[in-house]
């Protein structure tokens, strides 16, 4: 852990010299079942400054931010606001203490007007107790004038662009007279001009003495708007520095600079013929012109930031969202993959990214969850599920994957994340896939289970299965893949061979 001396030694450029910290979070720890999301992390936010949080996906930035915004309660650690110890009871409590979060997914009510959205719960009332629309409009106009926002307070939020909605969110946060504003990748959906406008507003807020916590993956924004930044890695605090004293390369090194300590049991296996060949695959507005080949026995890693289109590419290959253009060749034959059922008929299997949303049937038991993908195979005769054979095979495969449960009739909801993931892998292995697409196969699961899953992937490749593995975890991607394809904003920006791939090279291809 770095000493905090660095910070005190370097007064941040542009920050109002006040000395006092608006927000001091120290030794914060947060555990989720099976994972330590934050391990003794700190964050100090100065008055009148923009403080960027940097780190890879899963470094703990979002968790930390949610703690500051009162959404999560830390397991331990101190939390000081304006020099006073406080304990937040929830997001509403945080708001009342002057901490406002501008969410990535906007939380506005589309059918209501801008003014109604901003003053919801706090509507100015007339003496008779009716909502005073005139006063509300006037207050909104004042607020917008202060922030240089040009939006009609009476217009329905649903008719606004994403950028304008974001302005409304910011104005709403400011209307609470918040001192701390948290922005989570606010520019991800904005055009360059809109970004400029946003930065003007942020600078105005900074000049008014607000503290702004700014999460971004974009290096150039960091240098343009942030006074200071803190780097996190694997749930640990790395360092806080002024943005004037570092270079882009320094930051990348701080973000990824670690030894690959975990051993990845990647076996050298003979690589066979091309089994999956994607050419010019396009899904309008999401990704375009994606081409690659995967051979049997090969593990192709796909790296890229969240939102780069990695998962969408996998979904399109599996037929969840059929493509607009381009071809998919399976075993040398062009196949129109228009549904997951078609993909499965051709020997594909797809472990989705979101266990809860698209993976588990939470109400059903382990047995039923395991069997869900083989109900259109030989396990069903004349419509009747051959429960005896299927039950035996399910138990066998669950045991092989070491699913920790006393009972196949246990509801899957009662299992840990790692065990749920194993059940889902078991589901796909029962289909005896020839092409296995894995989207974040080890997200949110503990180290032991991770290693087991890695060993299994390696073993499957050894049996001639072609594996496509999407991973946000650099060591996993580097350790497991024969080749890595890097995706940035819906385009393939490069391929790296196992020998030449490194974290820095991936980061360079993945962010511009």
């Amino acid at each position, binding site marked *: 852990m770095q000493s905090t001396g660095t910070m005190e030694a370097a007064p941040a450029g542009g920050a109002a010299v006040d000395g006092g910290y608006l927000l001091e979070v120290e030794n914060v720890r947060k555990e989720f079942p099976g994972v330590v999301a934050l391990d003794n992390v700190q964050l100090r936010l100065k008055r009148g400054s923009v403080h960027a949080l940097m780190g890879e996906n899963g470094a703990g930035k979002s968790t930390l931010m949610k703690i500051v915004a009162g959404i999560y309660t830390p397991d331990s650690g101190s939390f000081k606001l304006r020099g006073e110890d406080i304990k937040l009871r929830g997001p509403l409590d945080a708001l009342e203490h002057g901490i406002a979060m501008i969410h990535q997914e906007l939380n506005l009510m589309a059918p209501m007007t801008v003014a109604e959205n901003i003053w919801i719960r706090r509507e100015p009332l007339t003496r008779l107790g009716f909502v005073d629309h005139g006063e509300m409009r006037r207050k909104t106009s004042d607020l917008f004038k202060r922030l240089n926002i040009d939006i009609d307070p009476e217009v329905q939020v649903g008719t606004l662009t994403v950028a304008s909605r974001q302005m409304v969110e910011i104005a709403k946060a400011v209307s609470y007279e918040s001192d701390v504003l948290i922005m989570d990748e606010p520019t991800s959906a904005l055009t360059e001009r809109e970004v400029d406008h946003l930065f003007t507003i942020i600078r105005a807020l900074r000049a008014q003495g607000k503290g702004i916590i700014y999460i971004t993956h974009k290096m150039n924004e960091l240098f343009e708007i942030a006074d200071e930044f803190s780097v996190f890695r694997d749930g640990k605090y790395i360092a806080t520095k002024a943005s004037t004293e570092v270079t882009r390369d320094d930051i990348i090194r701080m973000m990824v600079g670690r030894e690959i300590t975990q051993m990845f049991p990647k076996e050298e296996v003979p690589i066979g013929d091309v089994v999956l060949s994607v050419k010019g695959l396009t899904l309008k507005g999401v990704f375009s012109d994606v081409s690659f080949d995967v051979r049997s026995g090969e593990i192709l890693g796909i790296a890229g930031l969240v939102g780069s289109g990695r998962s969408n590419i996998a979904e399109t290959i*599996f037929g*969840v969202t059929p493509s607009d253009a381009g071809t998919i060749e399976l075993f040398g034959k062009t196949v129109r993959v228009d*549904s*997951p*059922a078609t*993909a*499965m008929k051709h020997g594909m299997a*797809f472990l*989705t990214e979101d266990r809860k*949303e*698209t*993976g*588990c*049937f*939470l*109400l*059903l038991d382990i*047995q*039923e969850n395991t*069997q*869900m*993908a083989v*109900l*259109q195979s030989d396990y*069903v005769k004349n*419509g*009747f*599920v051959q*429960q005896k054979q299927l*039950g035996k095979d399910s*138990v*066998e*495969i*669950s*045991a*092989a*994957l*070491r*699913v*920790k*449960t*006393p*009972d*196949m*009739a246990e*509801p899957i*909801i*009662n299992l840990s994340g790692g065990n749920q993931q194993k059940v889902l892998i078991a*589901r796909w292995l029962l289909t005896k896939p020839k092409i296995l697409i894995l989207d974040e196969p080890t997200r949110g699961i503990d180290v032991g289970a991770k290693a087991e899953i890695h*060993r*299994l992937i390696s*073993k499957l490749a050894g049996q001639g299965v072609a594996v496509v593995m999407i991973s946000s975890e650099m060591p996993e991607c580097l350790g497991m893949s024969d080749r890595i394809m890097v995706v940035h904003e819906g385009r393939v920006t490069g391929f790296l061979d196992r020998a030449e791939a490194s974290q820095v090279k991936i980061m360079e291809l993945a962010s511009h």
Partner: protein
Amino acid sequence: MSTNEIAGPANVIGSKKRLPPEVSILGVLIGIAIVFEILGWIFVGDSFLANKQRLSIIILQVSVIGIIAVGVTQVIITAGVDLSSGSVVGLAAMVAASLAQTSANPRAVYPALTDMSPIWAILAGLGVGLLAGIVNGSLVARTKIPPFIATLGMMVSARGLAKWYTLGQPVALLDDSFTWFGKSFNILGFPLPLPVIIFLLVAVICHIALTYTRYGKFTYAIGANPQAARVSGINIGGHLIKVYAIAGLLSGLAGVMTAARAASGQPGMGVAYELDAIAAAVIGGTSLSGGVGRITGTVIGTIILGVLTSGFTFLKVGAYYQEIIKGIIIVAAVIIDQHRQNKRKKA
């Protein structure tokens, strides 16, 4: 138990049997019956249960609702609902009756089609139900409008069709070969009406389909998590059409039986049956949010409704009070259901 080379020491994964959720519902049924038995001795001076005639009537009264409930249970398991069952009963009863009239009726709907084999009337009734179900299912699957709305439309239109069919006139004087399907038979000294036998047969078939076939697995999967179901290769739209079609077919069957029992077809037949059927399913443990429910539970739920009606009548409780209490019991059942689900989620 076997090991695999990836495995190392294999876990022992058993499959111990746990009590099915229906046991608690069965307990409720027995409890209600005992309460009536005790109240019977106190207020009426007679036994509620020790009366073959009464027991037979209880099941007969609910067998039509029960057949509908078996269908609607499957729809609810997919996280849908079918509000059209009652109207489809009315329409199917009208159509079936119109093809089962005797030539003794000078004002038969189709004078040329009298004195026919009952098979035509039955097929027509079933066909009407099946068609209504396919329309419901297609609306839900293809247009993605909420099942509530799709089947609400069918509920209104099918009732309208039933009235329009004879311009509101009842269809009377049905052939004995058709009304035979509403008759009772003595089996081992127990008067068992044919509708009851059909109800139990339907329940057994659907129970097997839901428990042991791919059809059943898909039904639960779609209700439990449609996105995951899709990624597992399930054709959701196609399957939903099947489920609604089966529910419609069973409503048609209920309509045929209603006409056979009443020896007539009336456009007002089956009003509000869908609500009793949904209530029976929910009392039986089917969750309106989908993914959970069993036919055995629904059968018990149906019998609970029958016992309540019969018990109140036996105790000479006024009809108005009966409805009030029935409403409270349905709501209480849903509250308990949600409580049960929350507990399951926390576990």
